[in-house]
């Protein structure tokens, strides 16, 4: 471990990125291209993790970690699976209206755990599908097919339906009970969802839908930083994996003279300040040991225990400054902030690796560790195995930091730029809107 922290920044990042990418090689079902949610036994597929895998293959090809033909085959397997999947919306189907159930069986690809048809996870999958289509632009018949499949899958998604009768997009739908009865409230990782939904040539949502969502934003001054509030770090990261949000602004950010990229940097400052203040006096927290986000945690759920002194949360979206905070930090969430604050992230990452080398297993960052829980024997609690979402965001964000490769790839995607403009984004790398275009 000490060796890892002695590496140069570039070598350290290369090693962590490649190790993270390795997850997708191990967790894939090569027959259908689907990828497991976690490395744990019998883990189902998470459709969002498939989206990250599809976005990671081009990175691997560029870095020489994977043959282009291999990447095409893996991508095609997944795309063909989704094309042919049962879209009836029955309780044992794979999807409905172009969306997919959150968790699927590794082999049959049908719904498991009575999971919901997930709008955000479908968006993350589709973002990966479109990334693959942007990268595999060759004339070989397989690459042509790949692009056609990608288009088919995106155009099939009925985003409009997902609005139900409400202002914002619903969070999910179940065949047993219909739409989950709440939409998106407050800033979240959903920019990519709204952008894809607005950019759709076939089933776009109404333009006021995005405004209805941003009307739930909270612009706050906290610890002397002005920012668009969201507690967990991943919210400040996921959309940025695909979309270069530097210098482009929607009407909210124009009014606040900020942008979502700067905002994610402020989120880093706020995490650092929070862990430095460490209100609940957890072990390990300081300005170079942070990372409250969605992730695995030690669970101590004992419903009949009265007045527990501390409650641990298992897998949860931890956040600052309002919690929940049970002393668990997510190392991948730190690394995924790399593009926004490279110097701060690298300093924290090196410090955390040095102090808690247990957070690295098989060379990969685990989904969470808690030094307070293990304080008695000096060994932090460490999440078992690895989570696909963690590995995916690490691969993409390191790449965006190193080469801006995914951002550049996706900035050429018409659906994305149309969607951004539909949401009112202007400036930066976005092509100026011609005067005839009305939104």
């Amino acid at each position, binding site marked *: 471990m000490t060796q890892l922290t002695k590496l140069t920044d570039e070598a350290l990042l290369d090693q962590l990125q490649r190790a993270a990418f390795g997850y997708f090689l191990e967790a894939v079902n090569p027959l259908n291209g689907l990828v497991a949610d976690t490395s744990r036994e019998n883990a189902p597929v998470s459709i969002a993790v498939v989206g990250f895998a599809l976005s990671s293959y081009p990175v691997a090809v560029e870095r020489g970690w994977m043959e282009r033909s291999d990447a095409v085959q893996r991508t095609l397997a997944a795309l063909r699976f989704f094309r042919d999947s049962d879209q009836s919306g029955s309780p044992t189907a794979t999807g409905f209206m172009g969306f997919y159930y959150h968790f699927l069986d590794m082999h049959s690809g049908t719904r498991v755990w*009575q999971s919901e048809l997930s709008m955000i996870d479908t968006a993350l999958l589709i973002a990966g599908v479109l990334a693959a289509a942007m990268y595999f632009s060759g004339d070989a018949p397989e690459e042509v097919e790949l692009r056609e499949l990608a288009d088919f899958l995106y155009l099939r998604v009925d985003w409009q339906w997902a609005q139900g009768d409400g202002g914002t997009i619903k969070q999910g739908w179940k065949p047993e009970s219909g739409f989950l009865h709440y939409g998106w409230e407050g800033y979240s990782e959903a920019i990519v969802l709204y952008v894809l939904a607005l950019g759709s040539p076939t089933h776009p949502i109404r333009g006021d839908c995005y405004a209805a969502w941003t009307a739930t934003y909270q612009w706050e001054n906290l610890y002397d930083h002005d920012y668009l509030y969201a507690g967990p770090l991943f919210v400040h990261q996921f959309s940025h994996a695909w979309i270069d949000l530097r210098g482009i602004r929607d009407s909210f950010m124009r009014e606040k003279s900020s942008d979502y990229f700067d905002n994610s940097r402020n989120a880093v400052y706020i995490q650092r300040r929070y862990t430095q203040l460490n209100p609940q006096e957890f072990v390990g927290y300081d300005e170079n040991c942070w990372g409250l986000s969605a992730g695995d945690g030690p669970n101590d759920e004992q419903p009949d225990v009265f007045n527990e002194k501390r409650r641990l949360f298992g897998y949860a979206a931890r956040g600052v400054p309002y919690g929940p905070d049970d002393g668990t930090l997510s190392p991948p969430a730190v690394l995924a902030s790399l593009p926004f604050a490279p110097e701060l992230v690298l300093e924290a990452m090196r410090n955390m690796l040095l102090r808690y080398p247990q957070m690295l297993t098989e060379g990969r960052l685990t989904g969470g560790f808690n030094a307070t829980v293990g304080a008695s024997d000096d060994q932090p609690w460490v999440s078992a195995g690895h989570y696909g979402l963690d590995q995916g965001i690490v691969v993409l964000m390191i790449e965006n930091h190193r080469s801006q490769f995914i951002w550049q790839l996706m900035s050429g995607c018409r659906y994305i730029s149309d969607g951004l403009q539909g949401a009112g984004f202007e400036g930066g790398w976005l092509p100026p809107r011609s005067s005839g275009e009305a939104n």
Partner: protein
Amino acid sequence: MQPFDATLTTPQDAYEDKRLADIHPQAWVNPKAADSYPLIIVGAGSAGVAAAELAIRLGVRVAMIERHLIGGTCLNTGCVPSKALIRTSRLYAEMRDAARYGAKAPDNIEVDFAAVMDRVRRIRSHLSGGSSVRRLAALGVDMFFGNVRFTGPDTLTVNDQTLRFDKAMVATGTRPHVPTIPGLREAGFMTNANVFNLTELPKRLLVIGGGPVGCELAQAFRHLGSNVTIVQDKPLFLEREERDAAQLLSDAFARDGLEVRLNTQVVGVRVEKGSKVVDLISADYRSTIEVDAILTGVGRVPNVQGLDLEAAGIKYDADNGIAVDDFLCTSNPRIYAAGDICLEEQYTDTAAASARIVVHNALLRGKKRLSKLVIPWCTYTDPEISHVGMYVREANRKGIPIKTFTVPMHQIHRAVTDSEEVGFVKIHIRDGTDTILGATIVARHAGEMINEITLAMVAGIGLRTLAEVIHAYPTQAEAIREAAKAYVRSRVTTRLRARLQRWLARRSSAPPA
């Protein structure tokens, strides 16, 4: 059928004798009515009593009529008994949690629930003196008990007496809404109207509804030792409050060991072997729990029935109560309404404030507006959640640029020394100014703290001035000044940066010397 378990009656003790002697004496004989009254008040709750006191002070002859108990919901089945109960429940919670404060927890903490409720009733009885019929009569109020029916635009009857009025105010309040759940009435249940009659602690309690009443009582009973399940059909508690506030409350409930069921509905109740068996459904997930008692706290319905409001030409609606304009006048220009019967904001002090507006407008030809009131409120859970003014989503909807200054309580020394660092102060201002639009406070004593911000709003004091107000150190209310200081710091930076940039621009455009 009674809207609750009618077998659960108030224990007849000395406290109860005193309370009834104060606020509805059995032997009371209604006075002989005057020929006509300048003002008749229907309903002697917080609004009625406030209006009567002000009118008497103005030298006006007043008749007030009460169907049940003077003091209304607040004194008898609302704020007063619930806050008394919460105080004891907090003490038990702190005893169990003593180690957190560096104290040794008592070895065997046993809740004497009868003593808890005895205290609740003693305090309620003690405070009923302030609303006693003798006191009101001594002030000069003609106090009637009985059922009111309007018989015309300027007449009504109490029992068999006819009373004429020049102006009238209807303030009959609300009663608990009873959800239509199959089997609930048959199984028996409690509302705020009878829960304070309990003398035995229910071992297992289901609370239906995650609004203020449900949240306060669920946590109080949990602290007193009940195994409490709280069921709320929405994704968060306290639907009206901002989600961070509601989230902190959810976390607090989880810490307390309350069984929380969000996005869940109660679909049926039945009795099996003496237990109440309750079927729940959450999306497609069905489950069943067994409890000993059920408490519902799912909103209120206005007391508009039985008054013959139509005879007086008063427009109303069974769900929203009496319709009033901004001057609190009903569709009959002689008749006004005040308090919960006509207001969206159903709080004791707001009821009283609206009643004073009515007296001004009805008797002094005033033009005071309801919409000018700045109304704070608080939910007395632990932590407490208080709010005044506008919410962010409201400002966004109205296109008002809004910015929030947030100070987590963990930055405030007194909160840390008291191990009460959960919560925050959020002050919303009109972006670009220091004008306060509203605030939300989550803190152990948020109810006390919100008053300072309400004062600032009423007096037109902005954050710049608040930042100059030295607060006693160390107090938790310093969080308010810290938010104001953050505002001042943010302005200084912006101004300095602008000036520096102008200076740099001039320098770079100046011709070389």
